[in-house]
């Protein structure tokens, strides 16, 4: 797969893309710490085995069984530094310094641009109905989600629907002299649970890379329709894709199916309204804190 992908505003990337020289052939100001880090890292890797080899050559046979966790036993070899430090302790310090430098400048894994756990997401958006040939609905949606983990979230959603008769409905009236019973959604509220098993990224003509996650949702609640003033129990299932545009702002495209039982003159009927829509998500707190800097 492609490598070196990064977010346009944050510039994330993979370790494989780290270059010692910039495109103009000069040392960039970021490369010096990197080189130091690499040198220290190489020293940290090679010094302990070298010390161990020296010990094996000079120490009595019983010393070979000494644990590497006991650096003080390496001191009798006679290679202490002017500051009184052994090679072993020096190498450990170098290793620690190297790791610290690496933490600053090298990314082994690409960071997730948006961290969701323990954050609130306020979602605002709209949707349009897809499947009803007689009544077309537009929806104004608002929801509040609390992300328990990176994958799970719970929350509440409210919708206000605006229905209008389609040309098909009017045709039935005009052509056949019939007046179909109609059910227009009015308002409703749901408790929702979201599960986000998919995480990825995409690009458009190599211009930028944005990270995304996909989620499925299920919920239960109540709504009211134009049939009567009763509050009806309703359920919803759906799914969506959330584009991580900024750390405090996301854009979600969502497909949702709302199900409930409606009362008609001919009897009860299971109603199904499929909506497709878009929502912006405002995240609180607006910034994220990584466990590691890179």
């Amino acid at each position, binding site marked *: 797969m*492609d490598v070196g992908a990064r977010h346009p505003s944050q*510039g994330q990337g993979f370790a494989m893309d780290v270059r010692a020289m910039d495109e103009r052939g000069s040392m960039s100001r*970021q490369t010096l710490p990197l080189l130091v880090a690499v040198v220290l890292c190489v020293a940290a890797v090679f010094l302990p085995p070298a010390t161990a080899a020296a010990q094996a050559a000079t120490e009595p046979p019983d010393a070979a069984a000494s644990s590497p966790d006991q650096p003080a036993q390496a001191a009798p070899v006679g290679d202490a530094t002017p500051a009184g430090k052994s090679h072993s302790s020096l190498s450990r310090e170098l290793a620690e310094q190297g790791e610290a430098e690496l933490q600053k400048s090298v990314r082994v894994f690409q960071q997730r641009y948006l961290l969701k756990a323990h954050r609130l997401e306020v979602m605002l958006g709209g949707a349009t109905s897809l499947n009803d040939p007689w009544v077309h609905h537009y929806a104004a949606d608002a929801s509040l989600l609390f992300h328990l983990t990176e994958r799970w979230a719970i929350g509440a959603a409210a919708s206000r629907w605006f229905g209008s008769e389609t040309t098909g409905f009017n*045709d039935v009236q005009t052509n056949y002299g019939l007046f179909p019973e109609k059910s227009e959604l009015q308002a409703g509220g749901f408790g929702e649970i979201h599960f986000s098993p998919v*995480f990825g990224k995409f*690009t458009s003509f190599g211009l930028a*890379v944005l990270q995304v996650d996909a989620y499925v949702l299920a919920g239960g609640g109540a709504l009211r329709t134009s049939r009567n003033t009763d509050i009806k129990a309703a359920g919803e299932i759906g799914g969506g894709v959330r584009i991580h545009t900024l750390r405090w702002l996301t854009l979600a495209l969502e497909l949702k199916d709302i199900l409930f039982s409606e009362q008609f003159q001919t009897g009860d009927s299971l109603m199904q309204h499929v909506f497709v829509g878009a929502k912006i998500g405002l995240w609180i707190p607006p910034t994220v804190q990584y466990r590691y800097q890179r």
Partner: protein
Amino acid sequence: MKGWARILLLAVALGLSAFAQEARAADDDVLADAPVVRRLLQHRAGRSELAVQFGSTIGDAYSRNLLPGVRYDQHLYDWLAVGAEIAAGIPVETETASHIGTIIKARVNDSFTMSASTLKFLGSAHVGVAPLTGKFVAFGALPLAFDVHLNLSFGVASVGGDPVVASGISLAPGVAGGVRLFLTRIVALNVDVGEIFIKRTLAVERNGKAPGAQYSGNTIATLGLSFFLPAQTQRAD
């Protein structure tokens, strides 16, 4: 008023803090001048795609049409393709049409027969672009590639009728969009939704006569399985 001013101030502060963090992050970025994407695996470039697919019209008033078919695409670039598709129509009368037929026959016109046009055949050529390509990991373990594509099509549709509702051939321009999910480098799953405009009479009126044909939109949802050849894929620089 004070309350609104505070909210506005808070929003501006939150926004500024977020942007400030972005700026700080970019400031010490060792990849600041690097290309955004390197060595992109091009799943489509220079490859042929043959798909078997199954579609269905959505939101029909009188007759739903199931549309099994095949599609061929030649991907000239990773983002551009030309192709063609054909589909045969299998009509299914909707519950509404059945009710209308029963009620009109019982109450208005006992010789009335509910009659609606159907889609017998669709054939079209299309140009497709894939402006968005990416990859994701499902359940933290299954890496898959995907693209989002848009197709602009032009073709013909054979409209099925009966002695009352005329059958015929109509031009059929259309537009569609969808997602292609690469299960392997050869096999992909497609989900598309499109709108095709076809000139036809939808159904008879209550007097048993058919009104004139008009262009109307037909929303079609399609699920397909694609096979890409050759098996090798290209990589971008």
